[in-house]
Structure formats: C-alpha cells, structure tokens
C-alpha cells in the first residue's frame, strides 16, 4: 500500500517536472513570479482535491527542534490540525535556549543530525547558522507568497529564502503594570525624561520602578536593543554603516545614548536584580511590586499562561526617545522555521510548512497562543481577544513609527553584549567604556567570521 502511494507520487513528480520544463520554455523571459506559480503546480493541484488525496496513507512523523523557553501551545494546535488533515505527526524535540541552544543547533547541523524542521531566531543568528548549507531553499515555495516582504531579508542569504515565519512579530519595549500606573496617576511616558519622572514617583511610592533580572543575563540587553528604533530615527543609516565598519556605538551619539539610558536606570531597579531571574521578574510585574519591565513582548504569552486573569492589566509602550516625536517601537521578527535539506521527510515538511504559514494556520495558532504583535503573513488578522498590550502597540504600526531591531538589519551582534550590558546596568562600568568594549567585541566577531571590510 505504502509502496504504491510512493510510486504514484513519483509519477506525479515526474509529470510536474515535465510541466515545469515546458512552462519554463514557453514563459521564457517572464519574471520570477511566473516561475513561482508554475512551481506551485504540484501542491496546488492536490490541494484542490481537498484533504483526502494529500493525506498520507501511513502516518509520517516529523521532528521539530524548538527551544524550551518558547511556549509551544499555538504551534501544537497547528500541528494537531496538520496531523488531522495530512496524517503528519509532529514530534517536539526540546532544546535549551540561549547560548547553550545555539551551540547545540550548530553542532547538530555540523554533524548532520538536524531534525526535519527547525525553529530558530531569524535575523543575524539565523544567518550565522549558514542556512544555505543546511536548509532547504524555499524561495519558490507557494507558501512564501503569503509572507510579508519585511520578514524576508531576515531569513535570506544571497537573495534566497530559507525559512518561513513561525508566527507573529513582537516588540522590544517596556511592559508596565496598568493598575499601579492608574493608582499613582501616571501616564505613558513619551520622552525619556518623562520615564524618569515616572520612575521617581514609583520609587517614592515604595515600589520597584524598573525590574532587573540579570541572573538571566540576556534580559539585561533589552534597554540597549529596544532603543534601536529611536537610534534609527536619529541616524537613519546606522545599520549599514555599522555593518560596513563605518559607524561605531561609541562615536555615534544616538547609539551611545542606548548604553547611557541603560546606565541611568540602575537607581530604580529592584534590590536583588543580579540574582533575579526572568520568571521572578514576570511575577513581580504581575503582582505590582515591580511596575515596569523592559522586555520582549513574548513575555505577554508567559504572563497569560501563568496569570491569565492579569493579562489585560499589563500594557506596553515603546522605549521613549529624548524627543517625543522620535519615539518609535523596535520590532522583532518572528522566529524562523526551516526545513532541513538532508532530512528524510522533506516533502512532508513542505506540506507542514505550507499549511503552517497560511492565514488559516495563523488563525489556528491564535486560538491557543495569542499573537505578541502583528502577523507577518498577508491576510492574517489580529484576533479580537488579542492582549491589551498588543492592541496598545498597534498605533506604532499604523503610524509607521517602528523599525526592526538591529540584529535583523546587520549580521553583527557581539557575543559579549549580555555581559557588557550587565556591567552598565549594574553600574560596574560606564556607558561610554562599554559602548567602546562592545565595538571591540563586534570587531572581534566580524574578523573571526571573516566579514568583508573588517
């Protein structure tokens, strides 16, 4: 039985192959778009038949490698639907997050043991994996037509796309406890000085104004990273100049300001910020002992999972610039899901991703995991019951007051940034010193990776 389906599949493949050749010949000189549509022949013809013919007779199991810090509820919901429709089971292979996880993924790739599907950061981290060596080129897959252009550069190498988005985008911003804000009569700060004024009032009320969770050192980077949209408002070419060794953090006033802002927050932080973890920080924010937390908005999902009744009490504002009309929101693109080129089930993985990265897939995801920002799939809408914090972010998108984080625009991200930001945030080193140190760290990375112009 299985043998037979394989055979028929092969014939279909051969046929489409022939089709492709002829259409390519006849459509000589036409643009990419045409080839794109012709390539879709195989999956789309089967798709019109509905679920039955596309469904595998024997169950196929795909392994998806994902870090253990991302909540998988939403992805699981889509995976369940995929199993129902296509008889493709999804096995979640959990790996650690952070540096540990990066290392694990790199070694799994290097030794040829990657899972069929891999969930990984988009942007510079993704490109550092050398996706062109390990992942399937999906540039011409039908599902990529749904993907918004803003996402593509973060998963492309030399104009070829190697991954689809895993869900909605998110922002690096300030989460705040709305109830405490109301109790203290505070309003969302539009400038950095207003933020500091708020901090003073919160501190005077005996609460922690800014939650620091430096035991998880990655969280210390947020004030610097979430400032990038403001940097770009002041220095529009910074990302390119930075990549091309023409601009530095230390001698670009707007960029240096990001480190300075971090240094200015130390007096407002909780007592044990060096021993506090991310989870503890979330708890503080929710129960109101801590009022503001510079964080990625994926934290909203963690809050919703642990404290569902408190979710609408958490708001989001963009990290303010010094000048109110420069304040913009820094956006993180969704993680990438890519197909391992040498996997055993590439065809099934394509089917999986085709459904996953559709408006329908996103809608199913939203039933279990609400978006942490707008979707990057065309036609996928925010659900009505989206988090209050996400709704609060929408004006920044509607007005175009946003920019991607630097790590999505430049392949350079010095590996020591978490340690350097801990030092600035904890007042061990000055912003100026560590902006310089970070420039050196970036230089080291660029040289070690052999990036041109360094």
């Amino acid at each position, binding site marked *: 039985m299985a043998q037979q389906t394989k055979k028929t599949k092969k014939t279909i493949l051969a046929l489409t192959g022939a089709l492709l050749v002829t259409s390519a010949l006849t459509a000589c000189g036409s643009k990419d778009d045409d080839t794109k549509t012709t390539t879709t022949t195989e999956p789309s013809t089967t798709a019109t038949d509905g679920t039955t013919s596309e469904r595998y007779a024997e169950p196929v199991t795909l392994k998806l490698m994902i870090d253990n810090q991302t909540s998988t509820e939403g992805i699981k919901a889509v995976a369940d639907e995929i199993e129902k429709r296509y008889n493709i089971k999804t096995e979640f292979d959990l790996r*650690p997050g952070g540096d540990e996880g990066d290392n694990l993924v790199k070694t799994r790739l290097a030794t040829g*043991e990657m899972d069929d599907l891999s969930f990984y950061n988009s942007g510079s981290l993704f490109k550092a994996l050398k996706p062109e060596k390990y992942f399937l080129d999906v540039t011409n897959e039908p599902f990529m037509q749904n993907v918004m252009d803003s996402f593509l550069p973060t998963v492309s190498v030399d104009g070829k796309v190697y991954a689809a988005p895993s869900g909605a985008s998110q922002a690096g911003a300030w989460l705040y406890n709305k109830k405490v804000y109301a109790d203290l009569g505070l309003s969302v700060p539009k400038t950095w000085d207003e933020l500091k004024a708020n901090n003073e009032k919160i501190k005077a009320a005996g609460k922690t104004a800014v939650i620091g969770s430096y035991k*998880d050192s990655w969280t210390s980077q947020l004030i610097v990273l979430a400032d990038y949209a403001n940097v770009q408002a002041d220095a529009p070419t910074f990302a390119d100049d930075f990549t091309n060794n023409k601009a530095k953090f230390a001698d670009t006033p707007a960029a240096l300001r990001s480190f300075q802002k971090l240094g200015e927050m130390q007096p407002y932080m909780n007592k044990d910020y060096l021993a506090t*973890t*991310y*989870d503890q920080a979330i708890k503080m924010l929710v129960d109101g002992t801590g009022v503001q937390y510079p964080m990625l908005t994926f934290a909203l999902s963690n809050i919703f999972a642990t404290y569902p009744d408190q979710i609408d009490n958490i708001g989001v504002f963009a990290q303010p610039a010094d000048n109110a009309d420069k304040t913009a929101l820094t956006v993180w693109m969704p993680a990438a899901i890519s197909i391992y080129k040498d996997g055993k089930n590439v065809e099934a993985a394509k089917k999986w991703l085709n459904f996953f990265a559709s408006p329908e897939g996103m809608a199913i995801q939203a039933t279990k995991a609400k978006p942490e920002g707008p979707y990057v799939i065309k036609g996928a809408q925010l659900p009505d019951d989206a988090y209050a914090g996400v709704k609060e972010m929408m004006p920044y998108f509607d007005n175009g007051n946003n920019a991607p984080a630097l790590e999505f625009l430049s392949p350079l991200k010095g590996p020591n940034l978490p340690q350097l930001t801990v030092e600035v945030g904890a007042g061990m080193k000055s912003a100026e010193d560590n902006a310089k140190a970070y420039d050196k760290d970036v230089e080291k990375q660029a040289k070690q990776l052999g990036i041109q112009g360094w």
Partner: protein
Amino acid sequence: MRLKGTKRIILETVAVILSVVIFWVPFFFVIINSLKSKTDAALLDLSWPSSIQWSNYKEVLTAQDHMVIRSFINSTLITLLSIVVLIIVSAMTGYVLQRRNDRWSGIIQFLVMAGLMIPPAVVPTIWVLDSIHLFKTMTGIVLVEVALGISFAVMLFRSFMATIPREIDEAAVVDGCGSLRMFFQIIFPLLMPVTSTVVVLSSVGIYNDFVNPLYFFPGAKNATIQLTLYNFTSMYNTSWNLLFADIMLISIPPLILFIFFNKRIVAGMTAGAVKG
C-alpha cells in the same frame, strides 16, 4: 598524641558541630527541598515539608521523554567502557615503564607526566575526532576519557609495580610464558589493589565529568547525566524541588560507592598520591 578528658570532649563537640553546619546542612537542605512542593521549595529554607512529595522524583525521571533515565544509561556505559579500556592499557604501560630503564622510557615518562599538567586542546581534539568520524559518538567520548585518564592511571600502576619483585617475572619466563600471557596471567592479578583504586577514582571522575561531554559529546539525544542536570537549571529555574530531586538522583552512584569503598578509596588515594 593523648588528650585529657574534658579537653577532648570539648574539642570533639566543636568538631561535630562544625561538621554538621559545614557539611550536613547543605546535604539536608538539598534532600529536604527535593521533597517539597514548588512553592515551598521556593522559600529555600530548612523547614520540614508541609507534605512530602515523592512525586518530584517521578516527575524528574519522566521529564522530556525519560531524559534522565536515558542519560543515566549513557553515563553508565561511558564510565564502564572507559574504565575497562583504561585499566588494560594503563596497566600494560605502567608495567613496561617500571621494568625498563633506558633512554626511551625516560622520554615516554615525561610525555605521560605532561598529561597530568597540560590541559587538553579542546577544538583541535574536536577536529581530530571529527576527521576520524568519532565526534559525538560513544566510542569517541570513551577514547577521550581514556586518553585524558591515562597519565594518572599509569602513574599509579607504575609506582605499584615497584613493589612486585622482578624474580616473579623471571620465574615465569623460565616456565616458558610468552610476554603477553605472562603479564595477564601472573602480573595483572598481582596489581589488584592498585587496579581497584584506579577503578574507583577514575569511575567517579568520569561519571562526574562535565567538561568533556560538553565539548565532545553534545546533543540532546546522547546527553550525559551531568549535562542533563546542567540543562535542567535553565528549564527548572523556578522549580528548585525538581532541580534538587535531580541532584539527589545523580548523587546515588557516588553515594553507594562511598558506602562500600570508603576505606579503600582513602587508602588507595593516599598510596598513589604520596608515592607518586
């Protein structure tokens, strides 16, 4: 040395109190918190659990598709295989090095001793392992553990060989033994005391090793018990009860070893370390 009655009792009392505070309290702290609920354990104190939760242990053992059990099997295999290879190759080396005394044995001796001091070159070792297709394999990690354990084991075997008279070898030769048979039938059994020392010390070292598996045996599938524990710190960073339960579980083998071989370990240790 003789101590007088009261003075001795005071000293002994002080010693017991100190040993309790410095050594027993940390053990007790980990044990007691491994049996608490998540919220109780978050207090990180020494109070008695409001209800004893043996289920923590079950949860740790079954987490992530029985990851802990699988890594237990891996660690046990690595330890056993490494020890077998290590004992055989080191005993042979220690024997020849002690019996021969020429220019070559001096050079070899120096190379062996260098292994005690010089830290291994990590990335080049990965490269070598990768070139012979042993990177991330059980064979690879076993050979690395052997290579890095040889110096210590050879040192112990060599100094113990000095206590075995040459006459025994000569008598065996007269009996017409071949060199290999002579070694394994006559000499090797005589090495029993030092062999058991090497077995105990090296197996503890290899079982507890974190660095080498981290570099040479990475990957979720073949995690060792130490890597699993380390990964749990990020996964369970708010569930101290589970983290401590895992610590208790992985401490069982050394504990058993300690109970049975306490005297033997101490005796063997000292013999090797001082003479060497």
